[in-house]
């Protein structure tokens, strides 16, 4: 319980840090890092709640997080490609 709160709480802090950085910073790369850290925060919270002390952990959140990681990397890749396309159009921008 305490461990769950501790780890899950860290996830929430990561989430908030991510939002903060997403809102405050302009460059695409920084926004993407922010989004990924936000996502990691949520994933972390899920993993934390799956932990059950001495019992084997709950596999469902693990699977959800696995899915989430792949989705996040897909989105990152697409966003970076879009960003690169913009750079090509406007090398100074």
């Amino acid at each position: 319980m305490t461990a769950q709160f501790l780890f899950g709480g860290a996830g929430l802090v990561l989430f908030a840090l991510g939002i903060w950085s997403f809102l405050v910073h302009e460059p695409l790369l920084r926004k993407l890092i922010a989004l990924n850290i936000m996502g990691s925060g949520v994933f972390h919270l899920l993993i934390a709640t799956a932990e059950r002390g001495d019992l084997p952990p709950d596999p469902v959140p693990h699977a959800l997080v696995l899915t989430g990681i792949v989705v996040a990397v897909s989105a990152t890749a697409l966003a970076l490609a879009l960003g690169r396309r913009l750079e090509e159009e406007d090398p100074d921008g």
Partner: protein
Amino acid sequence: MTHLLFVFDLVLLATLLGLAVAALTSPDPRRAVMLFIAFGLWLALVWARLKAPDVALAEAAIGAGLGGALMLAAARRAARRGTDRLKGRKSGADQA
């Protein structure tokens, strides 16, 4: 023993948050991405500690590894453009 483990956990989390803050606040893109990769790998470590080895593996390989590689390529371009622009500005100043 549990106390020791607790302290260990605290150190793990403190490092994790520290890496996140460092990655989020670094203005240099390459540095930020490097820190992000470190963050991802550390996160994998924490997840391994939380008995989630599958996810830890995936995070290390996909989140930190490939995601990091993609971002690193972008960061290198950004850094190159930054220096180009700096050079361009300098040469413009020289001409003037």
